[in-house]
């Protein structure tokens, strides 16, 4: 059991909300979901593979039968789930440094949320509400999101060159090959082992 698989870290955080506040958050999610420009900063953090917030209403927990009593929950819950590359500290530092307004908007409805700035108290909060990962499958443990995007770019350029190569004369191929190299030259980093966690 580990939150880390190769170059990827999986973070789960679950925070309780008073039910009347859940409606405010739902409205905020509606706006954030429909105004793409508001998501841009999150998308631009290139070490984040995935980030999602989900409201789990207090009546929405599964009841398996077999004598399991229905629970009477006082709070709704906000589940945050993210996969990212790099260190836990780096991730939260970056959130606090550049996404603090968005984070506060989403999390301020949760109980005891201290704000995403200053970062030390924010980290303590995340530490308290984080649930460790039981099982974690990663298709490419030796690759980051950047590595995967780079590989797609290289593949697309290569496929394009290959499809045209047979019909090119020598000089034309030389030119097409140079074009290919210029297209892929920012995307040639190695994949491999992740740095030691610290």
């Amino acid at each position, binding site marked *: 059991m580990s939150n880390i698989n190769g170059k990827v870290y999986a973070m789960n955080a679950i925070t309780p909300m008073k039910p009347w506040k859940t409606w405010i958050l739902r409205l905020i999610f509606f706006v954030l979901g429909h105004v793409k420009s508001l998501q841009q900063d999150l998308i631009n953090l290139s070490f984040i593979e995935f980030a999602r917030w989900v409201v789990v209403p207090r009546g929405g927990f599964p009841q398996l039968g077999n004598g399991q009593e229905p629970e009477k929950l006082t709070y709704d819950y906000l589940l945050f789930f993210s996969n990212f590359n790099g260190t836990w500290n780096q991730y939260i530092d970056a959130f606090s440094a550049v996404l603090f307004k968005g984070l506060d908007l989403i999390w301020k409805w949760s109980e005891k949320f201290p704000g995403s700035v200053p970062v030390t108290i924010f980290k303590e909060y995340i530490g308290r509400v984080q649930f460790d990962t039981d099982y974690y499958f990663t298709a490419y443990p030796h690759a980051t999101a950047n590595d995967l995007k780079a590989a797609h770019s290289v593949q697309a350029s290569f496929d394009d060159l290959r499809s045209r190569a047979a019909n090119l004369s020598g000089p034309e191929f030389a030119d097409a090959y140079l074009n290919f190299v*210029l297209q892929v030259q*920012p995307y*040639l980093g190695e994949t491999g082992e992740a*740095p030691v966690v610290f």
Partner: protein
Amino acid sequence: MSKLNETDIQGFVLRGYNLPFGRYIFIHFKNPDRAVVLISKLLPMITTGQRWDNGKPPSTVNIAFTHRGLAALALPDATLLSFPVEFQQGMKKRAEILGDTGRNAPERWDAVWHGDEVHAWLGINGLTAEALETCCSQVRALFAETGGAIELAAQDAVSNMVNGQQTGKEHFGYTDGFGNPDYLGIERNSQPGHGKQLPDGSWAPLATGELLLGYADEAGELPIAPIPHILASNGTFMVYRKLHQNVATFRKFLDEQSANYGGGREKLAAKLIGRWRDGTPLELAPDAPDQSIVKDPTRNTNFTYGADGAGTRCPIGAHMRRAHPRDAFGFNGKLIDRRRITRRGQTYGRFVPEGESASDAEDRGVVFMVLNANISRQFEFVQQQWIEYGNDAKQGNDKDPLIGNHGGHGKFVVQGDRSASNPPLICGHLPNFVELRGGDYFFIPSITALGMIAMKLVDPR
């Protein structure tokens, strides 16, 4: 912010002395009672950050301690345990984190680092070789007089001379020392490109707490610091790394790779680091060095990478672009403002001009010293994530071409364009141009803190 109390801060922290002769003496404390007597006798000799209104002094003395050294001085356990974990562990135990493995592994370091004997670092600099010797004799006489310390080793350093002139050039021929950050409250001839970039594109000093303990940092918090507060305040942490330079390997690499590179040998040397060897930034002058830029403080650090996303001027993986990415990761540089370090470096060994034969076996390199408030967040992060790894720069596992621990397996992509003089180039099988020969993490206390240590007045509460 008001001015700092410069007389309470060791001078080495506030400014690079730029004195040509240096010696770093590593000492071991045998007995805490005698050691504190030594410190009290050294105290009046310690160079503070007070301004030099009458020019540079003939020599300077500064002192810093390892965690073991502070323990050997019998500081209270509650204080010792309050230091940041990475400082308590020391650099050797952090080798895996830092990528100090293989050719850079601690087993290959100089003998002085093999035990855990080093308790303190005495940094002595001189305007002349004679002044350095005089000062060292005075310090060493105190070792003998007090019986407070034994000398384990001394590392000499001397600025490289070219045509009889002191230069800022290191052994590969690069002009060094452009990019140290500015900090709030520290007097310095500030120039654009130092400090942090603001959303409007202008530059401002970093928060004082990125360098000094006891002040707010870029996150608006006080850096993690030992107790009591007065022991930590106005102090900082130093990373000492002796970096051996394989000059023969470096020159052979340039010869071989430039034979297939339309840009030529000098441009290839520039692409490795991001500046021409005379110091001209590639971002500002991609085609040829330009001394008018180097000499102009409003220009020589005043550039960004945003318009060069493809790296056709300064390669994406170049040393300088990794170590100080400026705006390269977006967000107006906001992601890097808490990863900045201040560098104090001095060359050691004989400088061999191009054209004369050099051997890797000869003892030469750079004594590389980093100052930062938080070793883990600043130096260790830069070393692990940006030097020995490349994901933030979108270069995968590729390492810093110049100082990476490649072990013969490194790769460096020089991005280019369609012009014959700036073609793309992929260099494979990179060797270690630089090898680590030892070092440790040190605490540089304030003058007040030194006095407390000397008088055995450190109380954790």
